[in-house]
């Protein structure tokens, strides 16, 4: 090609490029598709479509929840602000038509017409194989199952083609709720076994890339880091047929663009936006913004109690009086959180969790306590946070740093990259840090078992050990299992009180899950996992 011809063709191309910048004409078939399609935009997407996989991330849970069924699920009740909220105590069958709880076992009758996406019937064999898989693959799923005392394949017994019994190892109030979380999902065992290998007996490589369940949706296309497309399963029997035919879930890394997409009406739903955006969108009223507290979740400041100066309860109390609570609520969260501080002096402890403690910002008291502990001139320390949640953590830590400086405590801020955060938590060496813990199962003793018990789980980030605390927590668990309400109430009040006097971690607030959606989207439900349930949603 001659250079002149080349230049001509290039300018021709440029002229052509200018034309289609106008909005393209949409054919009517596409308009129909739009009204039955839900377009979700979020920052991150799944890395694995199977929750039993190695290192499946939280967006992956959402796929599992919508594409697989469990034996049972929760009923809905009306939550804060009239938003449907899962009912912690009421269960309904999903794959199970009927279930009977006996003293040491629970028996499920399966729905006879239930089918997997490939048309194979759901049988008791599949149920047993799936539950065996959940307790055997190791990692997170096995860990979650063990939280409900479900640990051995022998616990799952096939009675006939449509009946399964789950035997209890011991009495545990959490066993039934644990069968309704995301992990014990029912997998198409024949299909997966066909695609398993000797190295991978549970077929994790296969289910990582495609869904093999009986759920209301199936993944038809997944491009990691870009999009997930799900289509409705027309033969779903787990509940009423969902109204949304197709779900397109796109990853849009830029928060500003996610907001623009929502405000222009191109995207239907988004979460993971900065609090400021949510607050502004709430105020201008063009979109529906739902803000609900994390069930059983708290953002806190933790202190390593094994090392000075935080091994001294007086120092910890001083810090608790020095926290800039209200500033954090206003400047960091823009009010989108439930305060967990400043309860009235005479308020009796409740049998509930989370509940606010009685500390308030009181620098005089903090100073007095600090000099009593022998640190009148303060000390030097480091406060660490997870960079993955820098939007909240960074301003929060700066406010804390500022406040502690008034006590003469010199704080350096240590920003830990997301990849390192878990390693650092596990080491239990950080003196001062902020973090969130939220339990799927909404019971006080569950929270305390993971966060305060002396068996020192990863979530006991403070390395807190107290014989009195362990006794109260264990007492509450036993009391709950046998249904002794008086003992249970006394123990729960006991451990809450102890946690507030000993104060190894300072609860700051209960975070909100914020979801913004178009006005024509209805049916949003709050679930313990805080992800979207497309099955109840409708458009228009």
């Amino acid at each position, binding site marked *: 090609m001659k250079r*002149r011809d080349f230049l001509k063709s*290039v*300018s021709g*191309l*440029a002229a052509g*490029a200018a034309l*289609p*910048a*106008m*909005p*393209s004409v*949409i*054919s009517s078939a*596409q308009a129909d*598709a*739009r009204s039955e*399609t839900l*377009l979700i*935009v979020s920052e991150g997407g799944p*890395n*694995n479509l199977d929750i039993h*996989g*190695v*290192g499946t991330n939280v967006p992956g849970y959402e796929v599992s929840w919508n594409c697989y069924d469990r034996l049972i699920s929760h009923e809905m009740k009306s939550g804060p602000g009239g938003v449907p909220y899962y009912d912690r105590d009421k269960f309904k069958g999903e794959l199970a038509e009927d279930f009977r709880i006996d003293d040491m076992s629970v028996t499920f009758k399966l729905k006879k017409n239930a089918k997997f996406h490939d048309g194979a019937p759901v049988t008791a064999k599949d149920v047993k194989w799936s539950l065996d898989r959940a307790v055997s693959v*190791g*990692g*997170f799923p096995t*860990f*979650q199952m063990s939280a409900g005392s479900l640990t051995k394949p022998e616990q799952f017994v096939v009675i006939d083609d449509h009946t399964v019994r789950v035997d209890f190892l011991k009495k545990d109030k959490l066993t039934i709720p644990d069968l309704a979380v995301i992990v014990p999902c029912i997998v198409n065992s024949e299909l997966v076994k066909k695609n398993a290998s000797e190295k991978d007996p549970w077929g994790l490589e296969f289910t*990582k*890339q495609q869904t093999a369940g009986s759920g209301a949706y199936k993944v038809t296309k997944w*491009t*990691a*880091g*870009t*999009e997930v497309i799900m289509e409705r399963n027309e033969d779903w029997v787990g509940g009423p047929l969902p109204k949304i035919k197709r779900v*397109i879930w*796109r*990853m*849009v*890394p*830029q928060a*500003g*663009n996610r907001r*623009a*997409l929502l*405000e*222009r009406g*191109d*995207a239907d739903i988004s979460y993971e936006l900065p609090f400021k955006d949510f607050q502004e969108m709430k105020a201008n009223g063009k979109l529906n913004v739902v803000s609900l507290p994390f069930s059983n979740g708290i953002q806190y400041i933790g202190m390593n109690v094994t090392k000075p100066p935080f091994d001294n309860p007086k120092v910890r109390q001083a810090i608790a009086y020095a926290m800039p609570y209200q500033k954090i609520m206003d400047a960091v969260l823009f009010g989108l959180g439930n305060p967990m501080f400043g309860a009235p002096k005479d308020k009796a402890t409740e049998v509930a969790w989370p509940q606010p403690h009685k500390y308030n910002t009181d620098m005089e008291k903090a100073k007095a306590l600090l000099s009593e502990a022998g640190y009148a001139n303060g000390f030097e320390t480091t406060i660490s946070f997870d960079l993955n949640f820098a939007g909240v953590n960074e301003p929060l830590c700066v406010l804390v740093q500022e406040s502690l400086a008034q006590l003469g405590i010199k704080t350096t801020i240590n920003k830990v*990259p*997301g*990849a*390192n955060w*878990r*390693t650092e*938590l*596990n080491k239990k060496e950080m003196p001062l840090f902020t973090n969130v813990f939220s339990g799927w199962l909404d019971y006080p003793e569950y929270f305390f078992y993971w966060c305060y018990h002396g068996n020192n789980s*990863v*979530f006991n980030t403070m390395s807190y050990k107290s014989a009195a605390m362990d006794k109260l927590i264990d007492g509450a668990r036993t009391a709950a299992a046998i249904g002794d309400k008086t003992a249970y109430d006394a123990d729960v009040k006991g451990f809450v009180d102890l946690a507030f006097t000993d104060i190894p971690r300072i609860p700051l607030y209960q975070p909100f899950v914020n979801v913004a959606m178009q006005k024509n989207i209805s049916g949003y439900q709050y679930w313990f996992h805080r992800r979207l349930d497309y099955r109840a949603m409708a458009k228009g």
Partner: protein
Amino acid sequence: MLTMIGKRLMFAIPSLIGVVIVTFLLTRALPGDPAAYFAGPAATKEAVEQIRKKLGLDKPLIEQFFRYASDLAHGDFGNSLTTGQPVATEIRNRLPASAELTLLGLIVSIVIAIPLGVLAATRPGSWIDHLCRVTTTAGVSLPVFFTGLVLVYVFYFRLGWSPAPLGRLDVFYSVPPTVTGFYLIDTLIARDVEAFRSALSQLILPATTLAVFSLAPIARMTRASMLAVLASEFVRTARASGLSPATVIVTYAFRNAMLPVITTLSMVFSFLLGANVLVEKVFAWPGIGSYAVEALISSDFAPVQGFVLTMAIMYVLLNLVIDILYGVIDPRVRLEG
């Protein structure tokens, strides 16, 4: 010619080996423990160890390296842990997205910058020279993500002319069957005009963003090199011989001024390909830049190594093409292997 190409490729091998070794060591030197990351927040120490074993990270470094090298020799780049996909497939899927965007950005940039540079050189000190100076200074001083966000804000959010910044194609169009991986070409092959328009309109804003950024080096280089050539004796001779100004500038001066411009172009291209991470982030573009950065953040070794290696190979090939182009443009440049 062929022996020259062969020789050049041979020389590239040691540098590629060097790249393999350095990226391997660098990724290992990164802070962060992938095993702990992928074991999840609730993992016990044993679970972390289990995963470490599964990933082969418990082996000595030298053994890990040889295993990696032998996998590479078999064309296996390893698996990404964050996306769960083989790295080779991911790069193959994502490279065309980045390349299409970068090429288009570069073409837009060339179309604007070269005439601007030539005009500025022929009329130094005039308004067009000042325009050239102002545009290039502005272009290079605006951060890429800022230009991108402003363009999105104005043309999508405010005016609504541009489609939603949601990647390469409107969500309701289906992807054309892959032939080249370039949607503009693939949609035309599939004779899907609507999808072509969609793909093109998705490309305009990000390509413009890149073009604004790369305008400066190209325009300035064209101007400088044109000025030098225009002052040379053969141009004076041509003018004295009464050739028309257009012939003098286009046929004589411009061709001779091309060499440094081509060199700049190659640098700008490779720079854009790697550095359009921010543009990819702003426009949710499924390219390799954002892929590599995400991998880096989660200390996911395989994609980072794969990315650096791919870029190194592209760089070698690009340099080769540029060298060949030199010979075509200026017969005086003879390549010795």
